[in-house]
């Protein structure tokens, strides 16, 4: 049986309950508790470390205020409450990537609670509760000579990532399908990148997701046995892992078996999850209040100051784009997908490009080029201003569409001033009626058969005549005008 066939029938009998935990690294300059740079990807191993993040004897943590601010910003974007009193706790366990033998995290009094996230799934809006958003520190990374630590002959530790500020966003078990889980993550990542606190990179692990999933017979009140799924490095992996888990759990339940509470890892290559740790093997983290850090008191004035730094969020911006620029819901969603995209759009419109024209070009040819060159418009040779001046030339009729397309492709890579280029290369659109009328007459004279066909009712015969005029102008003719002139001339006789 295939997955696709299994899941719908499983969903007839069982209700799927999914809750997601997301760990997102914060884009702060320095680490959570020391002055080391938080950028761990571009440094040599163990270069960005100091006595504090190495956990040397005698050192003490100092809270990164920017990380607190970013977490509050996130909490506000997720409609959370910010309690006036919050504290840090120690989560104790031994592992070589955790130098202190404990992670400074937050246990019973997190920085924020009781939020929610709304997102579309299959045309409907789903709301998922956010239990809490709290702040902690990331661990180091390990490189094993072998697959896993247990069987490795040796392991190397890089502590550059150790102490990077990490936000944990815990969602309520409100999700009912793998697709909803995926859309939740898409929207969450969109918001985090919008508000500038996270770069949303699942592959590099700056945005990581664990899922809790259980099944219960439809109509049942109590939750089924919960399984935690880890190691999912893409949105697709999350959806596939959950689908595979539903299939596995369904077959166990259908066979009259019982599930065990455990942690399972997604193995992309095999397309299934494997058991990693049972409930009995679960750590007792021995949480207790971090005695090296006094509790944080976040007063209302601070929270309001952070709220003032919140940009317009994607959903609201998409609504406004529809209202203000007359865009379709689809176009508005595409153009507000990222904050950069939306900023670019508004910059184009602000530079005098008509709203509809800007939308078509940005989401069409420009998006294709960005994809092709793996380079966003802002970093391309053309830039946002260059695109605006190119589109103004289109709008004013100075150049025609095909010319604009060619120029766009060239300038995107090489850069340059569109107006100067049009002038220097004589690319200006030929839209002089007298000049074009002469060319139209010449085309009819040179293609009598096509002209006759058109007059006899064959619409497609017009194409040959259009091409003829286009060629005669070196492709610069105002083609809508040529079309009108041809039709007029051919209907005269």
């Amino acid at each position, binding site marked *: 049986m295939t997955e696709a066939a299994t899941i719908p029938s499983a969903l007839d009998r069982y209700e799927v309950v999914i809750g997601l935990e997301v760990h997102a690294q914060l884009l702060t300059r320095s680490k959570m508790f020391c002055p080391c740079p938080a950028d761990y990807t571009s440094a040599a191993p163990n270069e960005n470390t100091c006595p504090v993040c190495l956990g040397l*004897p005698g050192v*003490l943590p100092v809270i990164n205020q920017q990380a607190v601010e970013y977490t509050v910003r996130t909490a506000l974007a997720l409609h959370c409450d910010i309690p006036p009193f919050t504290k840090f706790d120690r989560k*104790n366990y031994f592992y070589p990537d955790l*130098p202190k*033998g404990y992670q400074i995290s937050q246990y019973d009094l997190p920085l924020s609670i009781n939020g929610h996230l709304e997102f579309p799934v299959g045309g409907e809006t789903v709301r998922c509760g956010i239990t809490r958003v709290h702040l902690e520190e990331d661990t180091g990374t390990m490189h094993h000579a072998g697959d896993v630590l247990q069987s490795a002959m040796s392991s190397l*530790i890089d502590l550059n990532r150790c102490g990077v500020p990490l936000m944990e966003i815990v969602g309520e078990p409100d999700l009912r399908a793998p697709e909803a889980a995926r859309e939740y993550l898409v929207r969450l990542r969109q918001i985090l990148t919008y508000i500038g606190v996270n770069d949303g990179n699942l592959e590099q692990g700056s945005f990581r997701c664990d899922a809790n999933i259980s099944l219960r017979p439809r109509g049942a009140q109590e939750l089924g046995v919960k399984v935690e799924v880890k190691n999912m490095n893409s949105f697709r992996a999350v959806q596939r892992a959950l689908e595979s888990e539903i299939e596995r759990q369904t077959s166990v339940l259908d066979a009259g078996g019982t599930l065990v509470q455990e942690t399972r890892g997604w193995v992309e290559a095999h397309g299934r999850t494997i058991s990693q740790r049972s409930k009995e093997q679960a750590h007792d983290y*021995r949480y*207790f209040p971090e005695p*090296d850090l006094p509790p944080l008191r976040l007063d209302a004035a601070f929270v309001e100051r952070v709220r003032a730094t919140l940009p317009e969020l994607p959903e609201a911006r998409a609504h406004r784009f529809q209202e203000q620029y007359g865009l379709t819901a689809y176009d508005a969603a595409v153009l507000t997908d990222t904050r950069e995209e939306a900023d670019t759009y508004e910059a184009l419109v602000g530079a005098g490009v008509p709203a509809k024209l800007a939308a078509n070009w940005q989401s069409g040819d420009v998006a294709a080029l960005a994809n092709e060159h793996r380079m966003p418009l802002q970093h391309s040779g053309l830039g946002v201003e260059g695109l605006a001046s190119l589109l103004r030339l289109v709008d004013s009729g100075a150049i025609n569409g095909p010319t604009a397309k060619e120029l766009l492709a060239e300038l995107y890579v090489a850069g340059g001033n569109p107006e100067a280029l049009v002038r220097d290369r004589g690319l200006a659109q030929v839209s002089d009626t007298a000049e074009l009328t002469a060319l139209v007459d010449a085309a009819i004279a040179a293609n009598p058969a096509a002209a006759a066909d058109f007059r006899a009712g064959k619409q497609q015969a017009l194409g040959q005549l259009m091409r003829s005029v286009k060629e005669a102008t070196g492709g610069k003719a105002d083609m809508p005008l040529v079309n009108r002139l041809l039709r007029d001339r051919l209907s005269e006789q």
Partner: protein
Amino acid sequence: MPRTISELGIALRDGSTTPRALLAEALAHVERSDKDLNAYLTVTRELAEQQAAAAVHMLEDHPETASPLCGIPMALKDVLCVDGIETTAGSKMLRGFKPPYTGTAVQRLFDAGAVCIGKTNCDEFAMGSSTENSAYGPVGNPWDIERVPGGSSGGSAATVAAGSVPYSLGTDTGGSIRQPAALSGVVGFKPTYGRISRYGLIAFASSLDQIGPFTRTVEDCALVYSAIAGHDPRDSTSDPRAVDDPLASLRAGVAGMRLGIPREYLGEGTEPGVRAAVEAAFRVLEAQGATLQDVSLPSTDVALSVYYIIAPAECSSNLARYDGVRFGNRVERASLTDMYLQTREAGFGNEVKRRIMLGTYALSSGYYDAYYRQAQKVRTLVSQEFDGVFKEVDAIVCPTSPSVAFPMGSRDDPLSMYMCDVVTLPANLAGVPGISVPCGFVDGLPVGLQVIAPRFEDSRVLRVAHAYEQATSFHTVLSPYASEAA
């Protein structure tokens, strides 16, 4: 006789001695005395010579503005990190460990021109009351080397009592400065929690640890305290408010002051000789114009239990970093788990293991509420009782230790050892400042008087202690090792 910081400061400025001469004297004294005492784990001759040379310039260039500590030898408990100097915390676990940084309090002394001659012996990771838990052998009490100097800062107490250096730094988590000061016949001061940065102090129990000085006199104590106190951005638990100058009020006396005697601190466990010496001290303070009255701290009996939940809980977490992965001792084993187990088995002594186990248990799921949470509640109660008492009196006076120095090996069960700190550890739980000053002898062994004041009233502690000291002469009586040096 060995001179005080104040006296040496004058001698350095009138040209009758030099930093190098003082250093040579101190090193020679250690050379002579430490075979008996074992107060030093490391003698930092090279560092001291560099610092003495720097002090010479500071005194020549700015004799008036140079710190009173400039050019004067001193020693540091081996839980205080010094850049490039082996720092073991009295443990095999850290044998050979050289921190790449210097802690804040120590750096402040170095900046003032202090000359560090060595790192002193202590109970392993500051856990103990006799310095017998050091992995590097016990410390002899300069008054009787068959007896302990107290602990955990026993080496720092002994070296001042022996007259090798006029001052040293120790740390006090449950009495580890005050108790050895009492048993060794010197002044030992634990300031208010938050007054001295803990950055660079190898943690035992973070919410209780505090750095403080050992000196011969209360005035010297005020000098060292002034040099190291104050906010440190590297320690979030250090208090931001300004430190008042204890020297300004040091000589104000106790006339008109109300002093409280907590009857719980003079319970049945108090040795008769200690009781007699301390009660005589009360009469001296009365004669100085203070009014003495009984006060009550009813939670004293449970404070010991609370302490032995909170301190081990924090220690079980603080000592998790000694895993053999990055520094210190490592026992090579094929698997990670075995490496952890064997490294910690070999590196830690019994008392440290006992406290890690106690603390791990107290924090474990299912026991947290019954132990740790309950202990925190009682800790708040202990603190509130101090607040209440300080509404009635300006300071508390009491014994520092229920006993005088005891023979090595005589307290081999942990509980009787834990009882050593029964009158000192409540001050750590409440975060209040406390000092011990010499107040007499029992069969030739020193007794200490403890003075405790409200949080941030460190100057008041020093003022009361100074008034008592100046009215008596116990601080001028020298141990045999110090007399020899004279």
